[in-house]
């Protein structure tokens, strides 16, 4: 059986993994009612509207 001559260090394996990671910004759209930035196809958490209809009640602070 083939055996690695040197153990791969934590640093080396971490570097290899880090090269394949990437943070991405979420895709956002604008709420047609209040202009808030929202996740697309979702009820706006600020005004509770979706497709021109009040879906949920939002309590005012």
């Amino acid at each position, binding site marked *: 059986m083939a055996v690695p001559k040197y153990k791969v260090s934590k640093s080396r394996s971490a570097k290899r993994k880090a090269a394949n990671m990437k943070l991405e910004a979420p895709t956002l759209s604008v709420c047609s009612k209040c202009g808030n930035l929202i*996740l697309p*196809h*979702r*009820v706006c*958490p600020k005004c509770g509207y*979706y497709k021109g209809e009040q*879906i*949920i009640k939002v309590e005012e602070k």
Partner: protein
Amino acid sequence: MKHKIGFNALSRSSSQRKALERNLVTSLFRHERIETTEAKAKEVRRMAEKMITRAKVDSVHARRIVARDLYDEVVLTKLFKEIAPMYVDVKGGYTRIIKTQNRLGDAAEMVILDLTKKTPSYDEKIKNAEKLAKKKAKEAEA
């Protein structure tokens, strides 16, 4: 290959899954709108649609078949007398799923599973709730 996988097992054994689905579908007909996770909603939707279609004809046979999966006889009566008659002219699409925000804690995708048509008793309930909220707001001010 995704062959022969017709449904989402929801990480449950079949008995637990069945109980969960029966609970959710009973709640849906009782409250006409429930908030749950997306995966659960998509599973329950199928069951609810079939039940409404079945309930359009009010016969002893249809009632018995639907009653197998409902936990509450009051809800069974409501389904046959109030909910199903609203949909006599509609062929499917009795429910809709509206996505809301992800759940805090586990970031599960939450949705509202909703009957597209509401019974008069539901409208009344909403109105009463609104009145109560207004009253409470006034009292809080005073």
